[in-house]
């Protein structure tokens, strides 16, 4: 079995496992199956990446050659994202057991089945080389995600899920419209073929409209300001585990899709010319960075605060994209990866607190530094990463982002990045201060340290934040390869 043949299994394994899972009763087995499936998937993704960095892998389902059959086509960019998605899922799952037991006590089989569906959907989007297939997987993952969010114990979770459903569907529809336009114009759905045939027809308004629809559609899924409005509630009211998983994966995949279309299907020298994309994205990115950080500074609910922080962090990624350079894209991919690390760690820490205390409100964090030192220290350290302190992963991606901005002579962007970093200090600081420098009110339940099952995965991620802040070979190498794959003249055959 070659790597090329192995590669599709990272999508198929979770897909098949979800069917099994849906039928399994109890609390242990669904989780165990999910864990095994996810780890398998992650291992496959990990094996794929080095190979994909060398040459583009292509696998045609059912041996139908590409234009007719469905092709999986993997280069450095999607291998990188796939590894991220599968990897984050694999790290999150050991953490999930306790948390899910607490927050979703019943019908866990269905819950984990949804999770696996979402995972395989995300991986499918990533690996697929076929536009329509991307839409299909998008719908799979989205629908599963709506279900997952709806599992939140808070009644508002239902409403949040419903809103996300509406907006998600709008986004997916836009994508579908865009793809439809392209199909009408070129007669193919295969991304490589699209890239090949589009130059002939790209001066038509239909193609331009297709690009616009795809960008707005993916912008919605990506939660790019001002299309982010679904995100805070969805993250806030979803079960902690779902938030942890989504924060690290869903928006990243949406970004990937957007990049895939903008950079490889339409060539960047076209898409950034025909639409004022660079300007629009830059404005929206900066606005997102600011608005997200700004609002985060005032949020009393920590999950919600982190959700807004995500909006800001998405801004950083989009900013990198808007610079249209190898360094900029590298920064975007780096941040895509690093942000997943840090935000997952943060959500895990908050989830752990919720597990122990039952609430994610700032006021319930008071005095926790003494009683839950490991959890809160993990939060603080991951917070350092999101601030962008040197030796953390966050620093590396910000460094590249600033480099990219400077390469373009955009001084003011550097200033803006630093200002938003300072804002990050503020919102992280609020938690630290509450945890260590305020007394625990007498009427609050005394909380002890969390179980190791929650702590270990959290700390693994925290450690990864520092590891990738010091040893940047994998991340910078992967991100650079991904950026080059996207910018390096379309899909190489």
């Amino acid at each position, binding site marked *: 079995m070659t790597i090329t043949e192995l590669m599709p299994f990272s999508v198929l394994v979770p897909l098949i496992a979800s069917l099994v899972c849906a039928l399994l009763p109890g609390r242990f087995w669904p989780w165990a199956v999910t864990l095994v499936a996810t780890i398998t998937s992650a291992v496959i993704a990990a094996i794929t990446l080095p190979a994909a960095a060398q040459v583009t892998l292509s696998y045609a389902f059912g041996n139908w050659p590409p234009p007719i059959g469905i092709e999986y086509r993997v280069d450095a960019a999607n291998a990188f994202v796939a590894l991220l998605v599968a990897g984050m899922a694999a790290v999150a799952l050991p953490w999930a057991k306790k948390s899910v037991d607490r927050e979703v006590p019943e019908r866990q089989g269905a819950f984990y089945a949804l999770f696996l569906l979402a995972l395989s959907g995300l991986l499918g989007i990533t690996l697929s080389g076929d536009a329509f297939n991307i839409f299909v997987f998008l719908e799979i993952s989205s629908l599963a995600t709506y279900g997952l969010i709806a599992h939140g114990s808070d009644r508002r979770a239902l409403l949040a899920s419903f809103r996300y459903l*509406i907006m998600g569907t709008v986004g997916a529809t836009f994508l579908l419209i865009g793809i439809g336009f392209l199909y009408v114009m070129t007669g193919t759905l295969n991304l490589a073929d699209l890239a090949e045939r589009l130059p002939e027809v790209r001066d038509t308004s239909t193609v331009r409209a297709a690009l*616009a629809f795809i960008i*707005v559609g993916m*912008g919605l899924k990506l939660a790019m300001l001002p*299309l982010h*409005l*679904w995100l805070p509630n969805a993250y806030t009211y979803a079960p902690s585990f779902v938030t942890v998983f989504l924060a690290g994966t869903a928006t990243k995949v949406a970004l990937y899709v957007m990049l895939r279309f903008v950079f490889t299907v339409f060539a960047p020298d076209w898409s950034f010319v025909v639409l*004022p994309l660079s300007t629009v994205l830059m404005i929206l990115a900066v606005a997102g960075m600011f608005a997200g950080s700004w*609002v985060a500074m*005032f949020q009393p609910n920590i999950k919600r605060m982190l959700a807004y922080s995500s909006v800001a962090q998405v801004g950083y990624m989009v900013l990198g994209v808007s610079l249209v350079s190898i360094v900029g894209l590298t920064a975007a991919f780096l941040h895509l990866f690093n942000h997943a690390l840090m935000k997952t760690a943060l959500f895990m820490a908050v989830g752990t607190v919720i597990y122990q205390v039952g609430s994610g409100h700032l006021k319930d964090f008071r005095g926790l530094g003494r009683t839950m030192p490991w959890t809160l220290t993990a939060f603080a350290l991951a917070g350092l990463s999101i601030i962008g302190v040197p030796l953390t992963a966050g620093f590396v991606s910000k460094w590249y982002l600033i480099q990219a901005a400077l390469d373009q002579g955009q001084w003011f962007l550097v200033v803006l990045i630093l200002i938003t970093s300072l804002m990050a200090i503020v919102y992280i600081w609020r938690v630290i201060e509450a945890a260590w420098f305020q007394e625990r009110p007498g009427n609050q339940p005394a909380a002890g340290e969390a179980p190791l099952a929650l702590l270990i995965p959290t700390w693994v991620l925290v450690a990864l934040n520092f590891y990738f802040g010091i040893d940047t070979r994998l991340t910078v190498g992967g991100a650079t390869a991904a950026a080059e794959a996207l910018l390096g003249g379309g899909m190489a055959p």
Partner: protein
Amino acid sequence: MITSDWIHPSLVLIAGTLVVPLLKGRAMQTWMVLLPLAVLGVLWLAQPGEYGQMAFLGMELVTGRVDDLSMVFGWVFSTVLLIGAIYALHVNDQVQHVAAFLYGASALGVVFAGDLITLYVFWELMVITSVWLIWRRGSEVSFNAGFRYLVIHAVGGVVLLAGIIMFQFETGTTRFDQIDADGPAFWLILAAFMINAAVPPLHAWLTDAYPEATVTGAVFMSALTTKTAVYTLIRGYPGTEMLVWLGAFMTLYGVTFAMLSNDIRRLLSYHIVSQVGYMVAGVGLGTALALSGSASHAFTHILYKALLFMGAGAVIHMTGRSKLSELGGLYRYMPWTFVLYLVGGVSISAFPLFSGYVSKTMIVEAAAVDGRALIWLMLAVASAGTFLSTTLKLPYKTWLGEDSGLRPQEAPWNMLLAMSIAAALCFLIGIFPGLLYALLPEPVDFDAYTMSVFLKEMQLLLFTGLAFCLLLKYVGGGPKISLDVDWLYRRGGPRLISATGTAIVTADRAVRRVALGQLMRLTSHMERKHGRDGKLAKSWPIGSMALWTAIVLAMLLTFGVWR
């Protein structure tokens, strides 16, 4: 600093002083007498030459330079240390003893310094050691006076520092010989020396602080600080015309203000100013005779001024009073003090047979030889004034005059002994001026005991006395203090500093209050606006989300598709 043929006297003194805190009672007293004797011994062994050269921080130091000029001052400083130590034997305050000896060591360090860096170090040490002699008086007044003293000398110190640095840059050396720089270096170093020499208007530290020093401390102070300055002026600024006039002015300024003084030691302090004026004028004249006069006058002055301060100190020690208006009629109870004081008085007034006569007349003669009529007259007036206040007014009002009702004991034996030694030396030098002249760097071509000099001096003094007797009722006095330039920093300076400080603090507070206040208002406003239900943060209805989506799409389509 120690070689086989040279031991730095300061080092001996400092080392010996370190032992003082460990000793008590009789042992300490013995040690205090032995230590200055040891220094005298070291000086006895010293041979002319330069010792203790070292390269330090890129500068060439000569920590010990022995030549005739430095030896003159070395001898007299060591002698007065011995006298002062004996005078202070009864004092049971080790801080004072330590301070006095270290002060003496610093003064010796200055006169033996062969370069300006070493000089500066000892110069500053002199300040921080001597100030304790003021402070240990223990009163609130001396506490404040000590601070003023410290600050003024610190000013002198920084001025000297700046001057030396400029000098170093200008000439490329730090050797201390005649200061032949131009521009600021010259003037700054001169100004620093002049501060220590108490040249008006830089003199007020002296008359402000010395009267508030301890009884024994004032003896050392009267001898050391101004005379090191005289030494440095002789060494560095001979023949500086400005000094002639300043010196002559000083002599008059001192006697005039002495007339206004009610405190006996303040009166004597003004006479230090006056007497140092002679020396400064001598330096300014710059001839060999004048410089010899300055050096020998410094020598004699140290001894008789110490004697005068000891006498006045004995009175203060025994009566607890220091004001002329509160003293009187003490001769019955402190006759020895009276007589010994008078020896000092006639010495400072330059009566023949006493030490002042053989040195002061030399300076006056030098002015005459130089043909400076006005200077000569000014110095003559000052001579009259000196006699008037130190030998007539002060003793009259203290020991004679109206009986104040005080019934003190005679001063203790050690005080009287110290005074006797000083008096004996004054007398000895007066009779055998050759002993003193032999120490001087240049051969002295002057004889004080010619008929002409004798006659003039005696006429001047005795008719001054006559005028005093006739005009006694017009002599000013009474329980008053007189203003001097210290007003500027006792009233003006503190106000300026506190006003500036207040301004800065107020501005700082105001800025911070406004800034923080605004920040607070802003944050609370933001908290309200952007909290959970703020405009940006609240949960938007689906319609709004759709609206935004539509807007973005419409924008993109408008700008991108249908152009």
